[in-house]
């Protein structure tokens, strides 16, 4: 194992750990209800997940416009989630449909 690669991973790992833990420890004191920071934090979750979804889809769109597998796969995730209310089933269905359409179209 290369020492320099391990040291880089360690630096990133320690920083990431600090990002995840230190603000959580500091946030133990009560935040004023309806305050700006409280509202900011309440909106962070949906904003973060929407951002990560967009960031993960963007390279697929940039490669091939709006490919059919992406559209159908996305619809499959939404449809299965509405039907079963299950994150795992929706995820697996979306990936399965995406791969299936990809194979059918010979993309």
């Amino acid at each position, binding site marked *: 194992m290369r020492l320099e690669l391990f040291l880089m991973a360690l630096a990133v790992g320690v920083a*990431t750990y600090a990002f995840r833990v230190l603000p959580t420890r500091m946030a133990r004191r009560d935040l004023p209800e309806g305050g700006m920071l409280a509202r900011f934090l*309440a909106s962070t979750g949906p904003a973060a997940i929407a951002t990560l979804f967009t960031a993960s889809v963007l390279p697929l769109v940039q490669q091939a416009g709006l490919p059919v597998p992406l559209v159908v796969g996305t619809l499959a995730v939404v449809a299965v989630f509405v039907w079963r209310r299950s994150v795992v089933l929706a995820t697996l269905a979306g990936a399965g449909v995406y791969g299936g359409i990809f194979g059918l179209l010979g993309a």
Partner: protein
Amino acid sequence: MAADAFGEDILATLKGQGDGLRGLLAALPIALGYLPIAFSFGVAATRAGLSEAEAVMLSVVIYAGAAQFLALALVTSGASLVVSAITLIAMNLRHVLYGPALLKAAGARDMRTVWGWGFGLTDEVFGAALGHIARGGAFSERFMWGLGAGAYASWVVGTGLGAMAGGAALEGWPVLDAALGFMLPALFLALLLSILSRVQVPVIVVAVVVTVGVSLMASATMGILAGMVAGAVAGVLQR
């Protein structure tokens, strides 16, 4: 009285263990998503010239999927390790917001073991915990330990399996390769649907628009950071 107190202690302990088990079960969707994604990472890492041990080490030590894929791109492009580390640290800065947002949603105060379960507060664990709370589930540290342990184990195991399979593992399986490539977006979308409410629609729209704009004009890392902050600011301004 002493017997009653003893009984209550046992009940509390069992209840706590139940929380841990519930957390582990709640990790199942994440594990099913993580295994193939981590497998892809293991394959990509060995394809990029890393050894099996180095691939697994990245998953054990960094434990942040998007950053790990970016790490491969940076290392193989010849970027210095200092520049790579700074870039990856900046990319993971978004995690600063997760813990406080989660505690706010849970109305939780007494966090004695956050030093442990906080390590596993990834994008997906955060999303799953938030979804659990939004659906009326009870929040506890044992739940977070279970949730985090299941997700972490699947990530490390998936990476190891991918690294052992080797860089050419998916070359003869284009459909499987495509399906695995869509696993991460599908997981994020499902998590988003699980916490969706009418009041958050403007937050989501702003986050998406800003992410696309900044990603196209600057970089994907900047787009992620800007999208999150812009969406959260929109949430502050709308009420």
